[in-house]
């Protein structure tokens, strides 16, 4: 095993995850929101890898592959919707997308 303890890796992942969350909540621009999501997903992936490494199992890395795939798919769908958003609402501000409420 290399010298990085599991806890450290998980703390790092947690920080990443929190960063992503903060971005999700703070940024209004849809592009940044999607990026924040990517960061969160990658935090999860990091944690999987750390776990897999710690336990010496391949499953963690397998999961990471799945996560990457998902992230890609999500980004593509997200970007597609983003384009439509820009066309219909003439903005990328997520706050503008709040016609439905109550």
């Amino acid at each position, binding site marked *: 095993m290399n010298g990085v303890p599991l806890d450290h890796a998980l703390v790092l992942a947690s920080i990443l995850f929190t960063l992503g969350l903060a971005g999700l909540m703070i940024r*209004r621009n849809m592009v940044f929101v999607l990026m924040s999501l990517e960061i969160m997903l990658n935090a999860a992936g990091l944690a999987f890898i750390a776990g897999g490494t710690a336990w010496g199992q391949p499953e963690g890395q397998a999961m990471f592959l799945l996560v990457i795939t998902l992230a890609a798919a999500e980004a593509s769908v997200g970007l597609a919707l983003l384009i439509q958003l820009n066309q219909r609402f003439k903005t990328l501000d*997520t706050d503008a997308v709040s016609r439905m409420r109550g």
Partner: protein
Amino acid sequence: MSFLLPLTFLLPLAGTLLLSLSRGRLGERASAAIGTASVGLSALATAALIAGYLEAPERQVVTLWTWVSVGDFQPTLGLALDGLSLTLLGVITGVGLLIHLFAAWYMRGESGITRFYAYMNLFVFSMVLLVLGDNLLLLFLGWEGVGLCSYLLIGYYYRTAANGWAAFKAFIVTRVGDVFLAIGLFLLFRELGTLNIAQLLERAPQLWAEGAPTVELAALLLLGGALGKSAQLPLHTWLADAMAGPTPVSALIHAATMVTAGVYLIARMHELFLLAPDVLLLTGVIGALTLLAAGFAALAQTDIKRVLAYSTMSQIGYMFLALGAGAFDAAIFHLMTHAFFKALLFLSAGAVIVSCHHEQDMRRLGGLWRKLPLAYAGFVVGGAALAALPLVTAGFYSKDEILWQALAAGHGGLLVAGLVGAFLTSIYTLRLIIKTFHGEAKSDNARHAEAGQGLAHGVPLIVLMVLSTFLGAWLTPPLAGVLPDPHEGSAGWHTALEIVASLVALGGLALAAWLFLRRRKWLAEQTSQGWGARLWRWWHHAWGFDTAYDRGLVRPYWRTVHALRSDRVDGLFGLVAIMVRMTHLGLSWTQTGKLRFYGLSMVGGATLVILVLALVR
């Protein structure tokens, strides 16, 4: 002969049904004919019963069917005829017939004659049931039935709201008494396990010693019922207002029959009351108080019928006094003679009122004695009987009997009250006659009075006149064996009392004649200023009971009604609904539609979840 007994009330009932189901297709004459005929036939049946009873005086019981049968609770529709109920039956159907007949004259030209006769027949039906019922529940049926009829007939002229309210008051006040009676029934049934009167009276002495608290309570409750129905203090306030009804109604219901139901009840249950001497004494005291209070009130009335109403209260006070003295037969005897002469007075008053175009204020009458000789005669005869003019009137004999019994039983106070009452009676009676028939006519209505014509007008008055004289006193009620024997006393004292009572009555008449014929102006001055006026007003309003009840009970009740009107309790639940709605609004505010806020809530939720997990562990 047993079929005759049910006929006495079934005939009037048939009359009622016929009239009320006619749906207004009957004319005035047909209605009057049906209404009178049914009571007439009932009176015939009664006559046959009386004949039969005089021949063989024994108690008859006819049970129609068992009304309800649940465990011990088995009241029947059973009739019992004895001397007491026979006396009452005779009065009801006899006087009732005369009054029905008179009403045919009195009510002519009014709208709704059919309705009137339907009510009247229903009244006779209920009243007969009241006196014939062999158990208290059936008695209660009649008791409430007459109350309803009284209500309907007082409110007969429904277009004037005040009449309706008078009827309302009459019903409610008597209903208060009825509730006492009902509770008395509950108590008697619980203790004695039956409602049959004969059984009750048989079992009561076995269970209770004289003066036992329970029997005192039961008697007190029955007395409460009697007070309401018979307009005795403190439940008397309705009777004067009840004069809003047509005058024949006042004659039948509010003078001759219904208001004396209380006397009947106590006489009927006398064995129970004898077990409760305190309550019996209370009965006498209440009677004495009422007779005085009503006597004073009668002095200060201006409406003919109200004078007669207070006089009725006063006379029933005599009956209660008699009951209190243990002189049950004297009470019933007075009940009978009173029915004759008071009916006569009311019918005569009715004749005056109709003749004078519905004017019944004495201040606007006067000088009628030439124009209305028959009515005048009726007033004179009836008034004489009311004032107990010695020897020639029926009232003298019955009242004398009461006073004598009070003396013989040793109730000096009651005797004095009775004598004072007799004095007052003489005064207001003469005042009534003088004000109405003498002096000058004081209004156009009185000046253009037209005397009544026809048999329906004349016959009842004449018959009742005859009955109000000493001839009526010959009809001794066959009460021997039903009610306890009267007290014996020395004949010397009796004669002395008769002389004293006669003097009192004559003295009252003399005083009244002097006052109202000679000192009219002085009297008017005295009653229009200072203490005299106050006293007059106080008496005029019958000692202010109405005002007191109004302030003490009626208004607080309406305030309660008003305060609760909008259903405050339900309002509490409304509050819950409002709270739910507020919460809804508050929560809806969280649905901002903003993506970032939604994310925030997720994070918040996640934090909470993790915190809880960490803490619970």
